[in-house]
């Protein structure tokens, strides 16, 4: 892991990506610990819709809350949803993709058809239905995004897994009589880390976008805990009143996604077996 981090830092876009994600994580941690300039939930009644100033760096919102503190908590919320949903999708998708490639035959057929059903189902509507059934909120957003993204992960894993299955070192393992579990974890899974890591960063970017979209439709995180998407949605009708309420969350979302995409690109270059082989 350390090796990947150091080479990531040397990669030009990787460096920028890491710096952005670092800032994001820092803001999220501070937000969780409550080390924010003001209490994000406290209403400063007299200071409603104030422009960015010394006391309120990013200004205040309609209810008089400090936008900067809310942004920090918002980052935590959006990151939490993004990481949680992508984690679930990665684990579920990898297991399905791996087993479906390894077993092949009817299992492959069944798994892939189920994945097709989820993929054919319009993504945003699947999210809407899940949220309508269970009620909006953080956990539902996580579930909705995870369910929509799992089939994509399954496909991303199944492709390379199929080609890895043909590789000589898997045949070699068979000649030793290595157990199926050993081959699946040490040989297939370990070599899937490269495509997976790249897909995870792209999925995180996508998850941030989707959370923002769901909040825009009023189905994402629910007040009073802010998420970036919710702050964007709340600022929608105040666009002319208080443009800063929209600009800062929008830029933060873009920056976050940019950070994930940059890191993803850098990882793709670093982990790409072709580049590795040239180095050897």
């Amino acid at each position, binding site marked *: 892991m350390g090796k990947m981090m150091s080479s990531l830092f040397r990669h030009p876009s990787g460096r920028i990506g890491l710096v952005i994600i670092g800032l994001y994580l820092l803001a999220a941690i501070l937000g969780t610990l409550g080390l924010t300039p003001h209490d994000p*939930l*406290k*209403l400063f*009644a007299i200071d*409603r819709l104030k422009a960015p100033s010394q006391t309120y760096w990013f200004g205040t919102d*309609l*209810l*008089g809350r400090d936008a900067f503190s809310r942004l920090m908590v918002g980052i935590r919320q959006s990151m939490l949803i993004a990481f949680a949903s992508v984690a679930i999708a990665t684990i579920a998708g990898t297991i399905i993709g791996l087993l479906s490639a390894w077993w092949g035959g009817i299992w492959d057929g069944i798994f892939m058809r189920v994945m097709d059903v989820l993929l054919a189902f319009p993504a945003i509507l699947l999210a809407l239905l899940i*949220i*309508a059934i269970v*009620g*909006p909120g953080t956990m539902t957003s996580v579930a909705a995004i995870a369910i929509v993204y799992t089939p994509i992960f399954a496909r991303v894993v199944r492709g390379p897994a199929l080609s890895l299955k043909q590789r000589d070192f898997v045949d070699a393992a068979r000649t030793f009589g290595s157990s199926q579990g050993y081959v699946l974890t040490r040989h297939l899974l370990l070599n899937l880390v490269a495509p997976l890591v790249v897909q995870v960063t792209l999925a995180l970017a996508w998850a941030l976008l989707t959370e923002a979209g769901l909040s825009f439709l*009023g*189905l994402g995180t*629910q*007040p*009073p805990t802010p998420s970036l998407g919710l702050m964007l949605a709340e600022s*929608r*009708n*105040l*666009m*002319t*009143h208080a443009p800063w309420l929209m600009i800062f969350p929008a830029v933060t979302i873009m920056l976050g996604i940019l950070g994930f995409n940059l890191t993803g690109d850098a990882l793709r270059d670093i982990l790409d077996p072709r580049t590795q082989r040239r180095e050897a």
Partner: protein
Amino acid sequence: MNQFSPKTLLAGLAVATALTSVSAALPAQAAELRMAWSQDATGLDPHKQTAFSSLRLLELIYEPLVRLDADLNVVPAIASSWEFAEDARTLTFTIDSNAKFSDGAAVTSADVKASFERLLDEATSAAARSNFLSIESIDTPDDATVVFNLSIPDVPILVAMATINAAVMPAAEIEAGTVGTEAIGSGPFVLESWEPNAREVLSANENWGGGELAIDGITISVLPDEMAILASLRAGQTDFALLNDPLVATLVPMEAGLELNRVGVLNYNVLQLNPSRPPMDNLLVRQAMSCAIDRQEIIDAALAGEGKVTGPLTMPAFAQDPANLFCYEQDLDRAKELMAESGVDGFSATVIAATGEPPVAASEAQVLQAQLAEIGIDLEIEMMELNVYVDAWLAGDFDMAVAQNGGRPDPYPMYNRYFTKEGNLAHVSNFPDDELDSLMKQGQAETDPAKRVEIFQAFESRLAEQSPWLWLSTGYSYTAQRESVSGFTPSPTGTLFGLVNVSVE
């Protein structure tokens, strides 16, 4: 849902001048009004539809017997005059000779009788049926007169008839069962075409009893995003628009060439408590909450100042000045005293609210959460999709609920469903109270207007003092128009009937 009582009931009776056609000077060339709103009608059957957006459309196509003017007085519509018997148990209407349906046929007493029979028939599942249970029989001595015989003295029934839910439709349509699809009404406009959630095209109804219109039609576009409506107004693609969100409404005056019409409405924003769930069954706790909240700050923060503090009664004729209602000035010390007295040192509860319905619901919940925290009440906000919220609300399955309920010109139809023993929605308020129940019954039967005001003001004071709900504010209904549009008079009921006098350069 929107029945209204007259300012002075009996005085109105005397006024029976048949409104002859009002023909303002006709502009040279009648133009077409391009209108926009964010929520579209959900159906065309006036007896069945209850959503605000549906009523706005149907009020232009159908007509009830009587209507309410901008000052909430009962004025003639299809009926040119009406008369209550001494014991208020029979009500006679005379039909305006000019009243015609859009297909040219005259409106007769048979149509009125058929319409009310359809209303009362359970098979129609008309929501407004509960307001007309007192009708025993309907007589039609001749084409122009209709007599309603009531089982009990029911003064508010006249106001109940002044809503589109009591619209009159051709008897033939009722037999043919095409009421929901063919919109044949006697209103000022005829529905040419309807693409749900996209566009309605209305044309002026030449046969309208109310006379000539200044415009020859309206096309209404459905723009779900209200900022898009504003942009469309600004770009001149729309002449007139109905707005829901106060935040967007406050932007209109700042735009060159746009005007905002604003009128106080009878609907009220309220924090409904659930007295059946401890500790809210304890009166002192409820009173403490009423004293703890600062209603004006909620208006300033959540509604961007667009509202005014109100007690339970929102209609000017009956409402008392909120200042002398129980604890309408925020008094934290008294609130803390009451809490201490109640023996409950703070509790946690969830408050439900519907996302976007009304648009300010989420902000109100957050301000209330902050204010109630001052006296140790830890509120958790649970936002819900509209229908999920309605489901929970109807079942009374909530600790607290941020709501915006419909108001009426007469207190009886407004609150009989919640605070009378046999009210249909008694299980929503969960507050059976004999005194409130008897006051309601007296108000229904009392014919003398002065006495009715006294009765209902006592009813209002008790509600404020008992605080089963915390009444917060009343808002405004907004319409925006370009300079080229003139002549629109907004109404507290939110109806767009004022469009009949509108003209466009």
